[in-house]
């Protein structure tokens, strides 16, 4: 896609260890257009945060990008030096992390942190930067911003702190924001406020957002498209509505069935047996095959690729159109 703001192709992240190399993210490809919210969903250990960290160049050693390409507005950013990447981070890509208390320096006022970030990334004078900081705090919905700018992080509540973190991410008007579990630490009523804020910023500024979360509800509320990850691989990608309403991959189907819904009086939730494999023991073929109710011979030996078009894609042999060996009853499910 040429109009994509961010494009990730065949990303592979490895962790070299004494007992061999672990592949934490394998062959992940997706793109995000300007103004779009792409939700990345998966269980803990699925590799969603690693993918986000790789994009902003903050992979913790010994983890490293071992293959593939990350392009931002047509420029490769995965092979930049630390200094070049540092200038892109913050100016072109903003980041919001889960815990707002650890993303803010407790020793500096929020104003000082905002001003410092603005001065680093733009040509503003300190006075302009301070005015801009107040503007940003107002924009993210902090009441009495002129007064609150001189407060320290501990003087804010959790929801207000997360707003400050969002203001920090917005300092240099980035084109892309990586939001890693931005509402997980917050209460439901505050979560709704923060998600509404993210949606509004997206609409008003045309900022693209990569929203990493384990919560399908957050995705349904906020994202335009959703990518589902399992054991380091992308298993399904598509428009939020179609993935949530008609999930294709057996894992996504299981995941949706496992979410309790208000008003549905089922006695048992549908559950996926077992748990996600550890990185040291990813099964051959499709990583989901030991837990998949529809697995057949091919799933155990051959790995399905994500058959991706612009709109959607699913990595599952059940959806391989020119396959002849799909058992009949399974094909019926597909």
């Amino acid at each position, binding site marked *: 896609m040429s109009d994509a703001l961010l494009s990730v192709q065949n990303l592979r992240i490895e962790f070299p260890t004494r007992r061999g190399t672990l592949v934490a993210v394998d062959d992940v490809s997706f793109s995000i257009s300007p103004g779009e919210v792409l939700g990345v969903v998966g269980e803990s250990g699925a590799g969603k945060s690693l993918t986000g960290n790789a994009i902003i160049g903050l992979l913790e050693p010994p983890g490293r990008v071992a293959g593939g390409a990350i392009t931002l507005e047509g420029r490769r950013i995965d092979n930049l030096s630390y200094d070049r990447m540092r200038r892109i981070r913050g100016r072109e890509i903003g980041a919001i992390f889960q815990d707002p208390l650890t993303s803010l320096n407790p020793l500096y006022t929020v104003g000082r942190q905002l001003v410092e970030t603005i001065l680093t990334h733009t040509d503003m004078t300190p006075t302009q930067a301070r005015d801009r900081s107040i503007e940003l705090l107002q924009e993210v919905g902090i009441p009495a911003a002129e007064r609150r700018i001189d407060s320290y992080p501990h003087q804010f509540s959790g929801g207000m702190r997360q707003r400050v973190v969002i203001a920090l991410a917005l300092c240099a008007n980035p084109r892309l924001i990586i939001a890693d579990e931005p509402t997980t630490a917050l209460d439901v009523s505050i979560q709704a406020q923060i998600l509404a804020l993210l949606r509004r910023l997206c609409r008003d500024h045309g900022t693209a957002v990569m929203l990493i979360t384990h919560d399908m509800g957050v995705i*349904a509320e906020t994202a335009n498209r959703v990518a589902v990850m399992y054991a380091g691989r992308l298993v399904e990608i598509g428009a939020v509505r179609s993935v949530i309403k008609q999930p294709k991959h057996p894992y996504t189907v299981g995941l949706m069935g*496992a979410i309790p819904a208000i008003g549905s009086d089922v006695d048992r939730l549908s559950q996926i047996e077992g748990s996600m494999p550890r990185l040291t023991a990813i099964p051959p073929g499709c990583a989901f095959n030991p837990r998949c109710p529809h697995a057949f011979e091919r799933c155990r030996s051959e790995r399905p690729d994500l058959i991706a078009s612009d709109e959607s894609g699913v990595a599952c042999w059940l959806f391989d159109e020119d396959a002849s060996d799909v058992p009949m009853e399974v094909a019926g499910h597909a």
Partner: protein
Amino acid sequence: MPDAAAPAPSANGEVPLVEVVDLAKHFDVSKPFLNRLLEAEQRQVLRAVDGVSFTIPRGKTFSLVGESGCGKSTVARCVVGLYRPTQGAVLFDGTDIAGLRTRAQIRPFRKRLQMIFQDPYASLNPRWRVSNIISEPIRAHGLASSQQEVQSRIDDLLTHVRLTPADGEKYPHEFSGGQRQRISIARALASNPEFLVCDEPTSALDVSVQAQILNLMKDLQRELGLTYLFISHNLAVVYHVSDWVGVMYLGRLVEWGEKRRLFRYPRHPYTRMLLDTIPDLDMSGRDRQPVAGEVPNPINPPSGCAFHPRCPHANARCTEELPRALPVEGGGQVACHAVEEGRLAVEDRGTITPPPIEDALRAGA
């Protein structure tokens, strides 16, 4: 608050297993004496829980929901006896267990109620084998006479929570979060309890694992006739597991009632607000209006009804007078001036079919 006293035993005369009456827990959060003296400050009391009353019928699940800091975990801890209530009673099978003082008095009740905690990583001793962890209640309460009996009980419990007897030889770090929570459940079941208090048992787990644990808990309830007090902030989970639901805000129970009735006809404005925050997985395009404001500091709660600063229906009376808990048809109570005065009509949120009122009464209202 005499008005908030628990309702009489259910229509068929059966005594509910657990009855919480006007429960309060206050924490002294004052500065040290010398600081108070020098800075001329008063004592400060955090009213974590105040005037909470509800009943749990035998074999049913009662859930408490609310945002962080609303006091739901404090209620749970008071009910199992980890905190001594400042005021009020916890009647377990007719006996006020909060009022018991000596070990000998408490002992017979200890094994009849157990607790499951939120974090399965912190609640299991990492240096003990699983079999040791599970057998501790058996040994502590002297429930088995021989080592073989203990061992067969451990194997039995592990099978019950869908693990294998061989898992008893392992250490907690060898298990995933969901499996650890199964171990916690096995430990809780070891003393043959009738009543389990579950404090956010699935909040630290992924959704697919959460489904496994919730299914297991429901199966165990059916098999063993357990009664649950379930604490959660997740309304969808609460809807799935509960028979009765109570909504807490700043230390008070603002509304409680039969699950389907509460979700279909929410009365208290805070309940309505919480229901509005549930993400819409049906993608019906409902335009969610996020509620403004945050939970105030519980050390200085707002006067009158604590919800009034965020409530769209608040008037002068709400800022001054604490609302009384009024009975609701079909069982349960609501504490709201607007509802009492009829200013706020009952809202019908469709789709959910509540049981006929007689059923609700028979279930223990």
